[in-house]
């Protein structure tokens, strides 16, 4: 391979990375320019151009894809500014799929396949978001949001009432709950709990956790918003509740929760799914608390500023 062959190969590779309409023009000019450069190098060296000289010239020029990028800038498939969000969503997807697979196993569901689909969905979503921002400047612009402590009483009170009515009451007396909610129009015999389950630790733990959750909302109502301790209490209670519901799924799968075998069969995957979702909410809250910052000058790291 002589110097001309090396240049030709390089020009071909650059052209291959360009849009079809630009290839010929850029390749023709690039070949001419590289020829001039090579001739100047040969003149300075005092001998005819050779392969090593051509390689040296092209090394300074850059990778063909980089050179093509300078001739025709393409927008990044995913905006570099979105890298952080893509990584977070990728991790969130991996954790969600792992938790879902562990707590709610389903026949035919393949965690690896699901994760690949999740990655594909992320690439498509973030590419479309980037395209929309470029196409319509100003679209999807940033909007201010409430801080993590925000929880006015007008929201905290309904949250407390909903917690007391829905999970606490429903969990404590499922048959009574359905009878009242549906005005006695639905049969409730299928929801009868087994004696063993009534006395079991998962039920006691579930009941305690739900009551603590209601108490936490009551504290939020009193304090008029989230505090640091209520945030961490929420993380702990939701994580605990998720695991407890996972245990319920296991018991239901063995036919130990309800007297009716059909009710156990139907409820086992529901317990698993709700447990997985609750656990994921706890993970999200944990991440949010971990990532939370209260901007303040780090004076202890800058002794000179402390003096002033």
């Amino acid at each position, binding site marked *: 391979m002589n110097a001309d062959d090396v240049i030709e190969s390089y020009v071909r590779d650059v052209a291959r990375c360009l849009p079809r309409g630009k290839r010929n023009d*850029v390749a*023709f*000019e*690039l070949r*001419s*320019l590289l*020829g*001039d*450069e090579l001739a*100047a190098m040969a003149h300075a060296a005092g001998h005819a151009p050779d392969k090593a000289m051509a390689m040296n010239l092209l090394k*300074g*020029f*850059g990778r063909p894809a*980089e*050179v093509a990028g*300078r*001739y025709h800038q393409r927008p990044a498939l995913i905006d570099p500014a979105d890298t952080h969000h893509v990584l977070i969503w990728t991790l969130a997807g991996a954790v969600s799929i792992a938790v879902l697979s562990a707590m709610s196993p389903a026949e035919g569901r393949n965690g690896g396949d699901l994760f690949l689909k999740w990655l594909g969905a992320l690439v498509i979503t973030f590419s479309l978001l980037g395209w929309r921002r470029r196409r319509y400047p100003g679209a999807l612009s940033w909007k201010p949001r409430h801080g993590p402590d925000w929880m006015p009483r007008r929201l905290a009170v309904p949250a407390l009432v909903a917690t007391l009515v829905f999970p606490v009451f429903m969990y404590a007396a499922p048959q009574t709950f359905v009878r009242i909610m549906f005005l006695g129009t639905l049969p409730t015999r299928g929801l009868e709990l087994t004696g063993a389950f009534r006395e079991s630790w998962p039920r006691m733990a579930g009941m305690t956790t739900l009551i603590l959750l209601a108490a936490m909302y009551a504290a939020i109502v009193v304090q008029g918003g989230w505090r640091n301790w209520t945030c961490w209490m929420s993380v702990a209670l939701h994580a605990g509740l998720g695991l407890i519901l996972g245990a319920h799924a296991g018991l239901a799968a063995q036919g130990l929760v309800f007297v009716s075998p059909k009710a156990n069969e139907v409820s086992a995957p529901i317990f698993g799914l709700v447990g997985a979702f609750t656990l994921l909410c706890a993970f999200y809250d944990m991440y949010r608390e971990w990532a939370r910052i209260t901007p303040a000058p780090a004076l202890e790291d800058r002794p000179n500023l402390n003096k002033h």
Partner: protein
Amino acid sequence: MAERDNTGLTELRRGVLVLAVLSRLRTPQYGYSLRQALADGGMPIEEGTLYPLLRRLEAQGLLASEWNVEHAPPRRYYRLNAEGERTLAKLADAWHEQVRVMDGLLERRRR
């Protein structure tokens, strides 16, 4: 430390690249001759940066180009068009103003 100094210089040079290139294109130049002209004027530019820049300036409507195939090897000559002349004048004014401002700032620092 040396790398950080170089980064600053690279940024500084990148900022005036377009102005330097436009200033040399009042007369038609092909890629290599322009690079030589800039290097002779004290502004060496990497070939991988300069040649695509010429295409971009042409795409922006500041340069006109034509192939000269009468002599071997064929070469593409670039020169300023009317819009390029206007842009060069505007950038040159802005540059002189920047130099005045920076001289003032640096003078103040020296005192």
